[in-house]
């Protein structure tokens, strides 16, 4: 009895431990397979051509700059929408809304996070972009702006939930102190609670940005997919193409192992590195804040 128990315990502990390490293994595997399929590009396509302004793979133009600028412009637009509305909603939910309102709003925001991006893209094509075309009098509604609006909506739940967590962890004593000094609720939120939650809110913004850069289906369906350099303000009102949409739209048509195939994986490496940087930066902000808090307490 004692013996079998020990044996079971031993095996299970080993299994649980191995599962614990799995996340590291998967990140390593993902990176390895992206490198394996994507790095040959650096040999096959000269760097000057890879970072040129023309993406037209059928005629061997593999310039990924238009795709990078496309991703950037759509993400910037989405951030400009998601950050104010996300933080505003988080403040409303955590500081202003009555309890019953909070119970309704939180699941609704969570629901937005769960809406399949393809459904949003579908409505973007059928409802949003025709509206933008007529309203702004554009030749086509499938523009960076349409992508930004929908991506903003997709990034909002991330921003709301993390910013709200950050606001929630601000000790009540901070607020009470401000009230005792005669501050209004608004002054308390603006000058005490929000600054105290600063690092968490910053994390929320960064993860929202990360969410927007990586989104694929929605942008592919509504941005019009024209691989042109998007570097002026006017680019918001014309079609662009993002890195994610390029991979999704073109991977199905290329021959395995071709230059084209390797280049699409190379774009995957770029995306992977960006998301790695954003997420490590976001989590180190949290770690730093925690350490500072520990210093203050000790």
């Amino acid at each position, binding site marked *: 009895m004692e013996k079998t*128990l020990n044996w079971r*315990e031993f095996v*299970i*502990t080993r*299994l*649980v*431990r191995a*599962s*614990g390490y*799995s*996340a590291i293994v*998967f*990140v390593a*595997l*993902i990176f390895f*397979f992206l490198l394996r*399929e994507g790095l040959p590009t650096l040999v096959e396509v000269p760097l000057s051509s890879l970072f040129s302004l023309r993406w037209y793979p059928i005629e061997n133009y593999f310039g990924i700059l238009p795709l990078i600028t496309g991703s950037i412009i759509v993400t910037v637009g989405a951030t400009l929408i998601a950050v104010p*509305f*996300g933080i*505003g*909603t988080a403040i*409303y939910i955590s500081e*202003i*809304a009555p309890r019953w309102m909070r119970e309704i709003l939180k*699941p*609704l*925001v*969570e*629901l*937005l996070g*769960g*809406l*399949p*991006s*393809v459904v949003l893209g*579908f*409505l973007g094509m*059928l*409802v949003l972009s025709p509206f933008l075309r007529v309203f702004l009098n554009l030749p086509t509604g499938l523009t960076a702006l349409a992508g930004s609006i929908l991506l903003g*909506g997709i990034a909002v739940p991330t921003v709301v939930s993390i910013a709200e967590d950050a606001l929630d962890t601000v000790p009540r004593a901070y607020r009470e102190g401000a009230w005792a000094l005669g501050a*209004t*609720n*608004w002054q308390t939120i603006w000058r005490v609670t929000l600054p105290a939650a600063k690092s968490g809110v910053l994390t929320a913004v960064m*993860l929202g940005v990360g969410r927007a*850069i*990586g989104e*694929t*289906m929605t942008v592919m369906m509504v941005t019009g997919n024209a691989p042109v350099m998007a570097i002026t303000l006017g680019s918001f009102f014309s079609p662009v193409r993002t890195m994610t949409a390029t*991979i*999704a739209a073109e*991977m*199905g048509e290329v021959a395995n192992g071709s230059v084209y195939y390797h280049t699409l*994986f190379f774009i*995957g490496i770029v*995306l*992977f590195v960006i*998301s790695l940087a954003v*997420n490590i930066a*976001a*989590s180190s902000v949290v770690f730093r804040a925690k350490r500072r808090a520990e210093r203050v307490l000790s």
Partner: protein
Amino acid sequence: MKSAFTLNRHLVQRFGFSLITLMAVVTVAPIVVVVIYILLQGGPAISWEFLLSIPRDGMRAGGILPAIVGTFYLTVGTAVFSVPLGIASAIYLSEYAADNALTRMIRIAIINLSGIPSVVYGLFGLGLFVLFLKFGTSILSASLTLSIMTLPVIISTAEEALRAVPQSFRTVSVSLGGTRWQTIQRIVLPQALPGILTGVILGLERAAGETAPILFTGAAFFLPRLPNSPLDATMALPYHLFVISTQVPDMPVKIQYGTALVLLAFVLTMNLIATVIRSRARARRQW
């Protein structure tokens, strides 16, 4: 002077609160509008024939049964791989892991997994499962790809649920002679179950609605029958919606909205179940 100042800051507060409330409304209202709009537009398309028959006329008529069944298979397949692994990983982090560099690395890896773009998961699945392991474009490859994408959601929510179980429960079990695993299996896991379940369902909900990871790993453009082995490719609701709204000319709008509604219903049902489990567990919890 003083009263003007007070009046002023109360006015500012009133203005500020109105602005914030307006922002919250603008953020939340579209969600309600989207759901109601799809319900109204897609409702008329729903019939037994639509739900239970195979697409005809280049998908412009008939039903979407293969896509519904495909999404069901993919969700189950994802659960088979990601649920045991995710929960075990959460148990490790909450019950076994020491606070050291390795554990911090695991946490950073989990954060990174959750941030990797879905289309990059698709590339990875293509590279590893479809080509290297030669599973082909199949339900198996797609499920494995979706599992790895779902893993961070399950791990973090399950870990949070496990950590919420009071330490005294563990102390009592160990003091009665329970081993570590017995304590986890009989005390901690049952207490954390509702929280874990909520996380699992929310993770699977995300997997069910994803398109990009299955594009090159298992999704079929059109399949006039149901898949009959895990090594078959399959139609899936999100990919089908993408196909009929961008790749098929002269597609009746009614079928598009109907497909969107079925996908939405699938996802919303899972969301609702998760919300109900969570609120019921919260109401019943005694600690």
